[in-house]
């Protein structure tokens, strides 16, 4: 039995967080957030160089053959660092290309995606759930419109949800029109994307069980992102409470704040175990994998929202400023909560999946 991280897994997280923190300086992150771009090349390059996009690609296909657990650790570190870029779409595309039977698409794109040279984002549409997807594709070209596509301007590929719950990979080009939203989450700006007979490759037909599996992986990766973000906010609040003095005391000595910080930690640390289990259940293809992914997405996104709010309160005025930066994570929590469906949507799904 083993249900805690081994040294390799810890190394993945530490290395990544270290490299990203170094590359993505606060000035760079702030500049990105105030700018109009939707892609930050340096942090992307750092993850590419670590070969992390190929983490879940089987060794036979040139990847590291690791699992969703490791991908979740990466997602957590990126969430902690508030890294911009369509990391989750990239992971999903790597999984999809690794498991599709469309060898042409795989041969054409997998290597570039796994190496991070080709940028791929996800474009699900509808109300996020597969049954509501609406892009029409005949496996050669696709048409339809999808809102809330992260980093659309930077993407060469769109992992797209198609009508009745299939998945197509659509190529960027003149047939793809991109209309940037004023995104709440400034670190992951999204766009509305319109496909007008854009070049498309079918990866999974509607009804293929791998579609739900891919969607479940997306839920777990967002849950992990939320975990990382919540961890950052909790850590920052604790350091602040130790340094900042009031009434001649570090404010962390005041019992009310101390308990608020404990509550934050209680929102973070136990949920980490839930994320691990959700990833593990997915990797092992356990019966409860889909249901656990739904519960983890709902639980972690609620926790993230709660922790960011509490962190702002724990900081007082400074936490409410744009400059201090909690703002960035608060907005990421809004994104994580809504994207792929709100907590209540996934809780209702989890109830149904339990046969209730």
């Amino acid at each position, binding site marked *: 039995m083993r249900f805690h991280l081994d040294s390799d897994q810890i190394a993945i997280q530490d290395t990544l967080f270290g490299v990203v923190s170094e590359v993505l300086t606060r000035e760079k992150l702030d500049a990105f957030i105030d700018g109009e771009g939707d892609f930050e090349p340096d942090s992307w390059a750092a993850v590419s160089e670590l070969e992390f996009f190929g983490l879940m690609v089987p060794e036979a296909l040139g990847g590291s053959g690791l699992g969703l657990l490791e991908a979740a650790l990466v997602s957590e570190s990126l969430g902690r660092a508030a890294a911009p870029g369509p990391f989750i779409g990239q992971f999903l595309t790597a999984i999809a290309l690794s498991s599709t039977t469309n060898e042409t698409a795989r041969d054409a794109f997998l290597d570039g995606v796994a190496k991070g040279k080709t940028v791929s984002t996800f474009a699900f549409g509808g109300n996020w759930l597969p049954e509501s997807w609406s892009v029409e594709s005949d496996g050669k070209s696709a048409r339809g419109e999808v809102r*809330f596509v992260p980093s659309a301007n930077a993407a060469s590929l769109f992992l797209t949800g198609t009508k009745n719950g299939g998945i197509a990979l659509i190529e960027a080009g003149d047939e793809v029109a991109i209309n940037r939203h004023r995104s*709440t989450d400034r670190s992951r700006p999204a766009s509305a994307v319109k496909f007008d007979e854009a070049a498309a490759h079918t990866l999974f037909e509607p009804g293929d069980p791998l579609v739900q599996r891919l969607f479940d992986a997306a839920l777990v990766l967002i849950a992990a992102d939320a975990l990382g973000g919540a961890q950052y906010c909790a850590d920052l609040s604790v350091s602040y409470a130790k340094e900042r003095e009031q*009434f001649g*005391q570090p404010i962390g000595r005041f019992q*009310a704040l101390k308990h608020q910080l404990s509550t934050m930690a209680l929102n973070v640390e136990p949920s980490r175990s839930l994320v691990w289990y959700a990833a593990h259940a997915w990797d092992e293809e356990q019966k409860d994998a889909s249901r656990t992914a739904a519960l983890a997405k709902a639980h972690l996104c609620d926790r993230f929202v709660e922790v960011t709010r509490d962190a702002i*309160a724990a900081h007082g005025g400074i936490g*409410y400023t744009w400059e201090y930066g*909690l703002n960035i994570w608060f907005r990421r929590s809004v994104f994580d909560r*809504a994207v792929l469906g709100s907590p209540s949507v996934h809780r209702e799904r989890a109830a149904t999946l339990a046969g209730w």
Partner: protein
Amino acid sequence: MDLSYGQAAEAFRKEVRAFIKERWAPQSVERSDMKAYVAAFRKAATEAGYLYRAIPKKWGGSEQSPDVIKAQVIREEFTRARAPMEVPGNGMNMLVPTLLERGTEEQKRLFIPPTMAGDYVWGQGYSEPGTGSDLASVRTRAELVGDKWIINGQKIWTSQGGKATHMFALVRTEPDAGKHDGISYLLIDLDQPGVSRRPIRQMTGESGFFEFFFDNAETPASWIVGERGQGWNVSRTTLKHERASIGSAAMLGNQFEKLVELAKEMTRNGQPAIKDPEVRQALTRIEGWVMSHRYSSYRIMSNAIHGDEAGIISLMMKLLLTEIGHDIALTAQDLIGDEGLVEPAPAGTRGRGPEKWLDQIMGSLGNSIAGGTTNIQRNIIGERGLDLPRDLAMERGQ
């Protein structure tokens, strides 16, 4: 119990209404003349006894005896007609009451009339980087050199800081005295080389507050309110005043109504969200709090009218407002769903609807910070309201 204002008040209401009808017709005024028109209206309203009621005629006020009901009727009628009331801001809310109580005749003459006219706009200079709720830990220094105070230091969280022409500030003038005894209350003209300011951008992206830097800034020796070293005391009166003015049942009721509208607009499981059993529970659960808050403010007003003490409930209104506002914002966040991914349009432009709530959500976070954090509020309820012993750490820090 009687929630009506009574016959006398209704007669007074008619009078106010007639006045407004006669005097307030902004649609007929050219834009360029508007400022003068508003000033003239205020003057007339003051002469009629509707504005600047607490201010002696000597300084340009209407010098009316306090009447909670009349004040409420005036507020309601002016608000209804969107007629301008007293010049808003810290100057009228905080500085003028302080000057009336503690200022010299010269200070009153110098500052009250231009503040009432809106010519002097006052920033509050209490907080500093690092003070937080511990306002008495002032580090900005002022030294009396000849007939001038020389000021050095930094102030933060000054609202209306962009427009401010003057500041009332807590500064340390007696470095050797105790924490509270070394502070004085100075008035400072902000239009001088020794003063610079910087906007603080908030989560919403807007700049509601400013930071001020004092580098050998000057102010006349006589611009001190109260004695040297009495500034902490001087500031306490005004702060109390501020706390009482923040809570507002109408505002909260309004927010709640908007939440109900949002629930009608948004869809959930294929029907209007307001038909969803969970949403109905959430709304009516909040409504229990909103109504408790509303009728508590009637209760406080009723006590004030009859000259009775409302007791502990008066200490609760600010915190209630914050917490209920929080609940409303959280429920809204649940309701808006994907629309929360889109930022509201910048201030001044028109938002597209549901995503406007994002501002409300972030605003609810800001509320818990403005005017004292919730932890301080809870301390106050416990210590002043329930008479529990004072916090040791705070005691030791004093």
